[in-house]
Each structure stands twice: as C-alpha cells, then as structure tokens.
C-alpha cells in the first residue's frame, strides 16, 4: 500500500449546516485518506455526518445552508477548494464519480438511461451521438444489463431496483474515474441483489484499479468491502484502522455497541429473544390463500393474470412470532394487507379466534380490526403530521368507543408511552420532533392502544439503524412476554428475525418455499432459495479468498435470474 501518496486526502474537515439560522456542526475535524485501488468504508448510523464529508469532495454541498468552516481536500496533489467551478466540474464524473442510495430517485425519470449515460461522455468531451451511444451500450453490457442494445432506450422506471443501480454504476465508471464514491449503494436492495452489486463493484475495482469510498450503515456490507474502515458518530471519527482489526477488536465504545447490536451472532445465540413459553392454542389459521391480479398489458397481449399470493397456508398460535421472509415482490406484504381486510383475497380462508375473517361484516369486523393491528415500515408516513402523539395514540379509542372512557385517555397514553420506553411528557409533541426509532415506538404504542392480540409488523425495523433495530426488537419481544401478544413479522432481512421469530416462512414469487422452526431454517435450510438467501449475506472480506471459487459465484447467478424474471413480468 502506498501510504505516502494517497489519491485523496481530506484533512481536518469541519462543516456546519444552518438550521433555523443556528449553525449545526455536521462534520467536526474529520481527516481521512484513500489510496489507489483501495476500499475505504465510512461507517456510521444516520445523522453521523458520513455523507457530508464525501459531498464536500464532490462539491455537492450548497452554501448556504452548508458552510465549510475549515479543512482541506487534496485530490491527486491539487487542493480542491482552490479550483474554480469549471475545473471542479471537470473532475466530477471524470476523475471522481459517485453513486447513490436510491437509484430510482437519483436517475432523471424523463430521460432514457442511454441519454443519461451518454451525457457523461458529451459533457466531458469524450464523444457524442453515435459514438457515445455505442460506448453506453458497451457499459451497460459490462455492468450486466441483459440485451443492452434495446434496453438503452428504456426509462429508469422500466428497470428493476438492482438494474437501476447497475445503470448508475455504468454512468459512474464511464470515464474510468480514479475514485468511485458509493453512498449506501445497496441499502434499498434485496439481499441477493445486494450481493451481485457488491461483486460488480469489486470486479470493476480490480479491473480499473480505482479507489472506492463506500459509505454505509450496514456492518456486513462494510466488512465485506473494506480494506480500511473509519467509524463516524455525531460528526466525528471515533475509530479508524484496518477493517479486520476494527471489526475483530473494536476499541471505541460506540463501535463495540454497533458490532454487538449486529443481529447475526453465530450459533452462540447470545441474545435469544424468541418466545420462551410453549405456544398456546391457534389464534389465526390461514388456508390456501390466493390473490390474483389482472395485469393490463399492451393492446394486443390481452389480459394476463399475476398471482401475488399463491396457495399460502399457515397458522399463528397465541404468544408466537411467525416470521415471513422474502425479497420484494414475493407477496409477503400482500398477505398482510389481505389478512387486515385492506384487500380482498381471490380465494382461500382465514379463521381468527374461531371466526371466518373474510366473511366478517359490521360489528364483528370492527372487533377484528381492533384485535389485529399493524406496524408499518415508515413510521413517519403512517402518522398524520398534524396530530400530536396524544391524538395519534388515542385515535383507536375514538373509533372503538367501548375500550376506554374518555377521562381515562390521558393516563393511558402516559402509560403506553412508558411501556414503549418513551416519556409521558412526549404526548404533546408532533411526529417530526422524534427520531426514526422513537417514531416506531409511537407506532407500536398506537397499535397497543386498541389492546390487540395479533400485531402484524411489515418491515417494521427495516428503515432503522442497526442499534435502533435491536432496541425495537427487544421492545417487541418484551411486550410479547408481558402482554401475551402474537406477531407476524414480515421482513426481507433474514438475519433480523433470527433471534426473534419462533417459526419462519420463506416466500418466493407468492409461494411458501420453506417453513419451519427458526433454528432449523438457519442451521439446515432445505430449499435452494433459502440457502441462496443465507449465502447472499455478505461475508467479511478478510475471510474470503481473493479469487473466489465458482461455487461462490452461483449466488450471483441465481439472483440475476430472479431479477430478470421479475423484470420480465413487469415489462410483459
């Protein structure tokens, strides 16, 4: 490693952001460097300032509200802040390129991907028209887009999530940059797609010798990619060093806490949060549930049917947690919506506490909706921003008048807030005044307000930082013991449910492909798909040999096939 001459060196960078005219320090005295051919991972939870430092390098921070108080960024011997706008522009996209978290939002929706890739060549004088198009097709082929000659004229929304990220990567590597900055590049993707994207980034790095700066909150992704890692918390670097050392022997308390919150300890199962009581009687029995959608396709193709949920049967017992695991489009959320009677099933039966769910009308349906509650992925989106916490939590009592007399509401709200680990005085605040984890606690309190027997959690912790995830799962497990609740816990992230679910169902394309006790699913997965999901969880880089054997790569191939069929069904 050439320590003496790093391609990028950031020193004592300090950035403020103006919020309500008060400067808030986003990045405080941050220094790091990256060498050619090396991968540096910046690890931190949301709000830790990890994206701000790289945005400064890319000149993406608007001043105001941003204010670079101090520090230098030296790229290839040149101090970036001394350059004029045109020189800065010439570095962006050509010598330093960047990819982002959510490729659907970060690609312009109204232009074809070919045009957006071609722009990189045109704006840096590296070819235009037919030449740029030919080069763009070549790039799309390189990043693994099938049939690039025709797909080049597609718009971003016509690709799957993984393919869109491939398009972003194609755009970023178009001019063979010296540095590629990847800001949470796989956070929005399914685990098998994530594995492919990480593979692609590693391969491209090997081919071009570029430096890779990867920003992530995901410890596994960090471990899988990093040569060196810096850990950020509240705007400062708390720990830095070789990835292997930081991960195996974390020095700083924050890093230690992060790593211990990681939901996948090995067989030791230190923090087992599964229910200890033996499961009681059956609470919910689902039989042969099927949901078909008629897909309106082109003028001559006629109507096609698409089975979102295909002949699914399972049961949930009292005090039990059933995990439903699957990638996006596997039908797991459709099941939740049907069970809550938000969508009607095409066929099938569900019996809740002895009553047929799909035939309920009037009063029995009201009672059912009270007993079954839902916690959504995005707690902010599922709360009315103009209602304060007290109004949000009391709303079930407005709807179901017989739960609680009005004069008892205030005390009960305080009680519920304490139950989920918040303070009674939080009741007068509004949703935007809370952090993501706190909001999810409010959502849980709201669900508890109607005294439910079953709570359906649809990706309830997926949007949260890893240490917050652990806390929320701890809370759910605790409530289960204290209140005798049952959960259906829907997630795309297999490791999350490992220490929480009693039984797991793995879904793929609307079907349950495997079902069993959690320990069996993890220790002896039978179905090929479950195995591929488990394998797709990134492994630490220092444990994986440099040239990986072909067996390892088969994960990527199954994933690719998956992605392609999903897209095929969309494009019709």
């Amino acid at each position, binding site marked *: 490693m050439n320590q003496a001459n790093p391609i990028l060196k950031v020193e004592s960078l300090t950035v403020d952001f103006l919020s309500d005219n008060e400067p808030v320090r986003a990045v405080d005295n941050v220094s790091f460097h990256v060498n050619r051919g090396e991968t540096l991972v910046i690890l931190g939870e949301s709000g830790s300032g990890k994206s701000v430092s790289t945005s400064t390098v890319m000149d993406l921070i608007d001043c105001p509200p941003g204010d670079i108080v101090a520090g230098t960024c030296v790229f290839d011997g040149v101090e970036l802040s001394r350059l004029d706008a045109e020189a800065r*522009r010439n570095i962006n996209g050509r010598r330093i*390129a960047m990819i982002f978290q959510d490729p659907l939002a970060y690609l*312009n929706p*109204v232009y074809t991907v070919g045009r957006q890739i071609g722009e990189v060549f045109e*704006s840096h004088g590296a070819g235009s028209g037919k030449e740029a198009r030919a080069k763009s097709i070549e790039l799309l082929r390189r990043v693994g887009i099938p049939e690039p000659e025709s797909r080049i004229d597609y718009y971003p929304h016509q690709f799957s999530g993984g393919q869109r990220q491939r398009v972003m990567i194609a755009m970023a590597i178009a001019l063979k940059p010296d540095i590629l900055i990847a800001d949470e590049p796989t956070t929005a993707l399914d685990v098998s797609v994530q594995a492919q994207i990480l593979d692609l980034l590693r391969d491209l790095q090997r081919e071009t010798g570029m430096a890779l700066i990867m920003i992530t909150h995901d410890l596994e992704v960090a471990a899988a990619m990093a040569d060196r890692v810096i850990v950020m918390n509240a705007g400062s670097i708390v720990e830095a060093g070789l990835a292997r050392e930081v991960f195996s022997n974390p020095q700083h308390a924050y890093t230690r806490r992060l790593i211990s919150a990681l939901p996948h300890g090995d067989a030791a199962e230190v923090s087992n949060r599964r229910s200890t009581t033996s499961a009681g009687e059956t609470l919910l029995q689902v039989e042969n549930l099927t949901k078909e959608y008629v897909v309106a396709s082109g003028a001559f193709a006629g109507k096609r049917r698409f089975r979102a949920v295909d002949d699914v049967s399972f049961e949930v017992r009292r005090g039990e947690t059933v995990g439903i695991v699957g990638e996006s489009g596997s039908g797991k959320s459709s099941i939740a919506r049907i069970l809550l009677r938000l969508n009607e099933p095409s066929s099938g039966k569900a019996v809740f506490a002895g009553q047929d769910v799909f035939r309920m009308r009037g009063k029995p349906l009201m009672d059912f909706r009270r007993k079954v509650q839902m916690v959504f992925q995005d707690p902010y989106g599922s709360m009315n921003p103009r209602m304060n916490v007290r109004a949000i939590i009391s709303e079930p009592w407005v709807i179901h008048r017989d739960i609680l007399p009005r004069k008892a509401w205030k005390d009960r709200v305080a009680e519920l807030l304490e139950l989920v680990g918040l303070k009674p005085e939080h009741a007068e605040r509004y949703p935007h005044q809370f952090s993501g984890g706190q909001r999810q606690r409010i959502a849980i309190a709201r669900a508890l307000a109607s005294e439910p027997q079953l709570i359906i959690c649809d990706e309830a912790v997926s949007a949260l930082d890893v240490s917050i995830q652990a806390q929320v799962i701890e809370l759910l497990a605790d409530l289960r013991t204290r209140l005798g609740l049952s959960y259906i816990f829907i997630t795309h992230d297999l490791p999350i449910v490992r220490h929480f679910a009693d039984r797991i169902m793995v879904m793929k394309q609307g079907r349950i492909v495997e079902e069993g006790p959690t320990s069996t699913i993890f220790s002896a997965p039978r179905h090929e798909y479950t195995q591929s999901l488990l394998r797709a969880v990134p492994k630490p880089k220092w444990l994986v040999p440099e040239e990986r054997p072909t067996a390892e790569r088969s994960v990527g191939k199954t994933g690719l096939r998956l992605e392609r069929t999903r897209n095929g069904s969309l494009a019709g």
Partner: protein
Amino acid sequence: MFSYIGRRASHSILSVIGLLTLVFFLTRLTGDPSALYLPLDATAEARAAFARLNGLDQPLHWQFAEYLKDLLQLDFGQSLRQNRSAMEVALEAFPETLKLAFIAITLSTALAILVGSLAAARPGSLFDRLASLASLAGASAPDFWVAIVAILVFAVGFEILPTSGTGSWAHWVMPIFVLTLRPFGLLVQVVRGTMLSALTSPYIKTARAKGLRRQKIIFGHALRNSLLPVVTVAGDLATSLVNGAVVVESIFGWPGIGKLMIDAIIQRDFAVVQSTILVTATAIFILNIAIDLLYAVLDPRIRY
C-alpha cells in the same frame, strides 16, 4: 391511446349536450327578441308574424325538440341579426380569437419559463426578487383596467397605437400585451415553484456529480421535470382565452368569438349564442385532449 381519445370524446359529447340544453333555456329567459328587432310602434299582428316566422310562437319544449332535430342535421339555425347561418357567423369570428389566444399563451409561457427558471436558479437574488414582483403585479392586475390604462397611455396620450379594431400589426400590440400579462404572472410563479423543488431533487445531485454544466442542469434536467404543472396551468389559461376574452375583445373591438357571444346575448340572437357555445366547447375539448397527450410526451411514466 386511440381508445382513450374515443372514451374522452364520448364523455365530452354528453357534457356538450347538457351544456347546449342549459344554454337553450337560459338564453330564452333573456326576453323576447321581437321586442328588439321590430320598431317600437310595430303592431301586434306584425309581432305575431315575426314570432311565427322564427318559430318563437311555439311552446318552449317544442322549440327545443325542433332545435335538437335541426342539430342532428347539422343545421344550427339562422342569425336573426345578420340573416345568415349562425354557425357561419361563429366560425368567422373564432379564428380571430384563436390567433390572439395562441400568440398570448405561447408568449407568456415562453417568457415565464425563462424568467421563472432563472429566478429559481438563484433564489433570493435581485433577479429573483424583481421577477417575483413583476409576476405578482401581472397576476393581480385586472385585465380591463390594464386595457383601459394602455389605451389612455399609448393611444390617447402618445398616439402611437390605435385604440381599437383590426387592420395593421399595430392593432395587435395592446390586446396581446393585455392578454399575456396575467398568464405570464401566474406562470412565473408556477415555474419558479416547481423549479425550486426540482433543483433540490436527487437526480440533480447526480447531474452535478456527473460534472454537467450548470446551464444543462437547469434547463436540461430540472426544467424538463418541472413542465407538467406548467402545462396544467398554461392549459387552463389557454382554455379561458379560447373561450373568448370577452372583456378584452370588447374593449379593443376585436371581432373574436368573445365579442360575438356577448353581442349575440345582448341582441337575443339565440342561434348565434348556441353556435358560439358549441364552437368553443368543441375547441376546449380538443385542447384538453391535447394537454393530456402532452403529459404523456413529457413524462414517459404516463401512459393511457
């Protein structure tokens, strides 16, 4: 797409029929035309003969049935005033209105896009504040007042422009100016607002990270994504102009459909009123379809 147009057309025919029904009965509430068209000292026999000649002696529902029957044969009735086909009169006036509307809306949209985009590119700058001031003034000034002041200043005061009528290019200046002002003011606000939010979108960050030129980021990426709301508002404004700018056409003596309509109402020339309504309703229907199709052109995610 064609099935979409077909569906829209059939809906529109229903609403046009409803509209014509309403107009038919409402115009007849304005009074008896014979009171206007015959001399004050006309005899009762002469009035009865006039009514009989024009079918005005029949009961109202009978007149309506006759009207519908004629409509089906594309006979839109005779103008009482001009004694020729009412549709001919309406179609003669309509192009005059269309020309005005087309120039005014094109001019105001183009100007608003330019001014609004530049204002949004540097929010809070001097240009932005001036643009906001101008657009607010333009949007709030009542057009009849602007028209009268303009006549006072340019026609009466400086005597460089004609007060009203048609003929030379100079006749176009004031009507176009007055009709452009308000749409311009409203559209600048729309363009500025949508551009401001477009410029903070993630894909703009991508464009900056790619190293695109500022001009291209603003006009290539942000503007293109801001056009949908602009088209919606511009379309709505165009509709009101095609409808005939009644006040402005009257003030400037412009022989358009707006002036024709108001004259026909005053003169109780029922067939002409009905024909002008039919013409403008059809035009607005076509305009709305065109706007919907334009959405699909501008945003590939919209398909019918």
